[in-house]
């Protein structure tokens, strides 16, 4: 090992240390941004070191440089542009897209390595080069690539976000699994001696993995999507680690394993917050087949509809208001309007705080990001366990586009939301719900809170409804 190679290895170690410290700093909102910067510094160091390594190796052909630089610059430009431009409400699908391309790149590294090794030295050579890692990289990378693209499309609305189930999907999944794993094991145990056969077999594994990624994510419903994205994120990490084995590179192995493990933990944390189990999510279908009859009696119950003026007066003369933002607020991008209303109420001496359910918004923690964007200090955002005891002392709970996370039915067994921790909105003295229609939430069940006598329903788009409330408060009580 030459001096340059030793130096590069040391920089890789430094980069790995940066990744670990960066992730660790992400444990607290106060240090999180610095954590990301530390991690980015490590990334730059790793890339520069690799650049030094390949310049030192001196085997890169001019056209190779063009391909590398143009490719990386093109991708980086696209990434930069989309990261800068994206609305905060569309973050989840963008993360999923980045996840897809990461998994895709990892798979390509293994495919390239396999193709060059087989054409240069015969398939038998592969055995000594860690064919296991190559096969795992292709399978995991391809599943992640296809699955993340589908997840991204579902969140964007290009693909229906409800569970898509078609007949024969089980059989298709079994066939795909057999091809994927069977082909992989065949490649590992007894690689075909002819190059064409070996590459053909890998291609079959690749196609089956891509198809499996699609059929795995399609039947999963919108509410579970964040957990799936997190799971696919962990998959990509693992695929990258496998790519590290393939190209014998330490920083890929370390960073990939870090993301694989921390992504796995994060997936579990998210699933726990929604009281869902990861296997149940992957098997699919939020509440499919569950009893719908449990709360059916409520559906025809008497709703009390309120107008902006009534709601405004109720809010303006309250002494304590808790705002419960949900998915509807995120979808309508009404975070700035909600802050305006809160500021207005505070200026009248109303005590305003925000109750954030762990899975409010489109993704755990997403609501915090949106409200932070609207300059709401995060000290005003209260987590579920902390704020639930406050509801009985609250005059008005203002629910904006939230549904399942406040459904009292969750306290009873036997329905799709059973056991999910909820915000005790029904304990407040009165409730105003801003909602576009009586449509059900992800769980697809009615919410008995809406027909509660102390609840007023204000049917409006979150953004428009809040703007009208602000105007009404201003004109009515000055």
């Amino acid at each position, binding site marked *: 090992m030459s001096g340059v190679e030793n130096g590069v290895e040391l920089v890789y170690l430094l980069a790995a240390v940066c990744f*670990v410290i960066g*992730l*660790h700093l*992400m*444990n*607290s909102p106060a240090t*999180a*941004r610095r954590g*990301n910067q530390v991690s*980015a510094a490590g*990334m730059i160091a*790793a890339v520069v070191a*690799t650049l030094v390594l*390949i310049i030192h190796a001196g085997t890169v*052909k001019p056209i190779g*440089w063009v*391909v*590398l630089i143009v*490719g*990386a610059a093109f*991708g980086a430009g696209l990434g930069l542009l989309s*990261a800068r431009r*994206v609305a*905060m409400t569309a*973050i989840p699908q963008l*993360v999923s897209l980045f996840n897809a*391309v*990461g998994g895709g*790149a990892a798979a*390509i*590294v293994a495919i390239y390595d396999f193709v*060059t090794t087989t054409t240069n030295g015969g398939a038998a050579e592969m055995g000594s080069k860690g064919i296991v890692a190559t096969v795992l990289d292709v399978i995991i990378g391809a599943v992640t690539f296809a699955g993340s693209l589908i997840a991204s499309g579902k969140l964007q609305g290009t693909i229906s976000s409800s569970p898509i189930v078609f007949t024969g999907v089980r059989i298709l999944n079994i066939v795909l699994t057999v091809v994927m794993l069977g082909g992989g094991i065949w490649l590992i145990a007894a690689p075909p001696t002819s190059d064409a056969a070996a590459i053909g077999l890998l291609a079959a594994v690749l196609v089956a993995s891509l198809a499996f990624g699609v059929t795995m994510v399609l039947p999963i419903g919108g509410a579970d999507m964040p957990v799936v*994205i997190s799971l696919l*994120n962990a998959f*990509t990490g693992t695929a*990258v680690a496998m790519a590290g084995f393939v190209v*014998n*590179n330490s*920083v*890929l*192995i370390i*960073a*990939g394993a*870090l993301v*694989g*493990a921390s992504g796995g*933990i*994060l997936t579990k944390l*998210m699933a726990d917050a929604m009281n869902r189990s990861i296997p149940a999510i992957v098997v699919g279908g939020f509440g499919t087949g569950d009893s719908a009859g449990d709360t059916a009696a409520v559906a025809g119950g008497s709703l009390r509809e309120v107008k902006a003026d009534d709601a405004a007066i109720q809010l303006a003369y309250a002494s304590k208001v808790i705002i419960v933002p949900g998915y509807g607020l995120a979808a309508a991008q009404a975070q700035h309007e909600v802050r305006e209303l809160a500021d207005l109420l505070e*200026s009248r001496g109303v005590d305003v705080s925000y109750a*954030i359910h762990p899975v409010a918004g489109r993704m*755990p923690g997403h609501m915090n*990001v949106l409200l*932070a*964007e609207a*300059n709401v*200090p*995060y*000290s005003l955002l209260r*987590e579920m366990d902390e704020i639930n005891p406050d509801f009985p002392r609250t005059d008005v709970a203002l629910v904006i586009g939230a549904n399942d996370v406040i459904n009292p039915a969750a306290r009873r067994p036997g329905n799709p939301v059973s056991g999910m921790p909820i915000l005790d909105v029904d304990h407040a003295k009165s409730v105003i719900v801003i909602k576009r229609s009586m449509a059900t939430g992800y769980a697809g069940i009615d919410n008995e809170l809406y027909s509660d006598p102390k609840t007023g329903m204000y049917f409006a788009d979150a953004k428009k409804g809040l703007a009208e409330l602000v105007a009404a408060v201003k004109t009515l009580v000055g």
Partner: protein
Amino acid sequence: MTLLAAFSIFVLSLLVGFEVISKVPATLHTPLMSAANSIHGVVLVGAMLIAVSADNAIGYILGFIAAAFAGMNVVGGYVVTDRMLGMFRKRPVPPAPSAVTAGDPVTESVADRRDAELTR
């Protein structure tokens, strides 16, 4: 690096990954996922190593796609995470609500710009 050494590094890194984010608040789940997402953009290093030995059309095509994919993952991932976290600014809760608008002109102008961005 022998396969055994590589495997040891892999297992130990997994353990570090399990421990390092054990008690993260739900507030940070989305940014953390995004941060982890950008770290696996390190696959760019793998894409660069492809270029070292590529010498035919297939190699160049695969190298190009891998470099583009990885470049998008790493740059986009870090930028979007930073943008998200940049919004978690710690500000004192104003005692008098009028301070919200008058107190911090810099923050306000940033917020205004974002508003403009959103409505565009």
